[in-house]
């Protein structure tokens, strides 16, 4: 059954902006992205919003709904109270372009800084074989849809713009973890560069990235903390360091 709901939508650009109140019809089963589209169609024809699949798989409609980073296409209107005003703003960790659209190019720059998978020289393309239990571990990380909600909520950059130079963010820590846990990846210094170049040590594991992940990737427990422990192996544990020198092997 249709009902009218109260929305507050942030309108503006890099020079100025503010929250605008609007009342819009919402039908049963609709998500926040649906009502934003209805506002765009009926009341604010120039409202800028990024979206694509409407199925929680493309990661385009990331925004903040009642202050929480979420996908608008996966947030049911019915999950809010009937009298509640739903406040919709752009992601607050990235530069604003217009209305609900932000410039997320920070993430693409960081992606380019992560060295790619390095294949064993003795294995020709097509010869590589992996056991299922080795594949499963990194498959969790491959579920990432690059919505960048984890990057948005991470206080290291959200609350400290200056840290963007030296901090890759949770999305790229799962990428580094995926590669470092890959049985065939031959690049040896991922742990060291994770700590020294990509800012793993900046993370204080308050787990907000895990809380907002729409794919339910256990970013902190399965990627960041294991990487921190691997860094301890090579940088802060003399016994492990000595063992690795004697046995001359970094990963087992």
């Amino acid at each position, binding site marked *: 059954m249709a009902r009218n709901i109260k929305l507050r939508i942030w309108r503006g650009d890099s020079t100025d902006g503010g929250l605008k109140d609007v009342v819009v019809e919402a039908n049963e089963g609709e998500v926040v992205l649906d009502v934003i589209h209805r506002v765009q169609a009926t009341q604010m024809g120039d409202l800028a919003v990024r979206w694509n699949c409407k199925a929680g798989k493309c990661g385009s409609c990331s925004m903040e709904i009642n*202050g929480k980073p979420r996908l608008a296409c996966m947030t049911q209107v019915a999950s809010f109270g009937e009298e509640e005003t739903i*406040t919709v703003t752009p992601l607050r960790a990235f530069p604003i372009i217009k209305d609900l659209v932000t410039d997320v190019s920070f993430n693409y720059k960081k992606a380019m800084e992560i060295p790619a998978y390095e294949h064993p020289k003795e294995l020709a393309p097509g010869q590589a074989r992996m056991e299922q239990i080795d594949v499963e571990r990194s498959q969790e990380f491959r579920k990432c849809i690059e919505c960048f909600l984890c990057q948005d909520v991470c206080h290291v950059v959200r609350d400290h713009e200056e840290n963007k130079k030296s901090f890759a963010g949770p999305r790229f820590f799962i990428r580094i973890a995926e590669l470092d846990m890959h049985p065939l990846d031959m690049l040896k210094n991922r742990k060291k560069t994770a700590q020294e170049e990509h800012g793993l*040590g*900046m993370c204080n594991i*308050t787990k907000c990235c895990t809380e*907002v992940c729409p794919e339910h990737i256990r970013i902190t427990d399965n990627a960041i903390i294991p990487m921190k*422990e*691997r860094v301890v192996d090579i940088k802060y544990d003399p016994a492990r360091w000595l063992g690795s020198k004697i046995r001359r092997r970094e990963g*087992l």
Partner: protein
Amino acid sequence: MSGVFSPTRAKIKERTLRTDKWWLQPLITFGVLFSFIIYATFRAFENANYFVEPLISPFYSPCLSQACVAGSTIAGFTPVSAHVLNFALSPALIILIFPLGFRMTCYYYRKAYYRAFWLSPPACAVAEPHEKYTGETRAPLIFQNAHRWFFYAGLVFNVFLTYDAIISFKNDQGQWGHMSVGSLVLLISSSLLWFYSLSCHTCRHTVGGRLKHFSKHPVRYKLWTWVSILNHKHQQFAWYSLAAVAFADIYVREVATGAWTNFYFF
């Protein structure tokens, strides 16, 4: 102006637009941890009421000081002097540093106290009040990387506390085959400490997490999967074990002072 108030970001004056009770969880965490710290400090310096045959408080075990009351030591092994620089050293002070260090550097408790005590951040998508942030890259927080050493020490302590739980199945005359409420309290406390330790992220890394090839190490992979199951509940074990240890100490203290009677089942 930094963070969410940076000039390039959407101009929103509120530190957060969250409408839920985001402050409740850090407030509860602060209250519980602060109460525990106050109580543990009081008990560490009290230097009394920590042993009553056959129960010893987990705060004072293993009792290694020459000041330990008769019967509370392990086979009379007391390598630590009762006084250091004319200061009467409580036996608890010698050992509490290890479990305290284990919990302070624990990956779960870090989340809890960074949020509740240091507001870094107070909750997700709530702007923190600090101007600068360097995380765990420099002293003192870089010492969080010593977690594994406290983990190893914690395992040793768990052995002692399990021993304490076993010998609590005696009566106050030292005869085996009896069980009291105190036995149950120490057994639950030491068991939860084992679960807390074995569910630890460092334990998960040590048994198999550091491997690149699970398929080449099937036994370690199996261990890793078991520890991973426990690891899902690490937060719960952290709180349950903390509560159980605190209650075990309260129980022993109350029995030692005579306020409570240690009821024997058989």
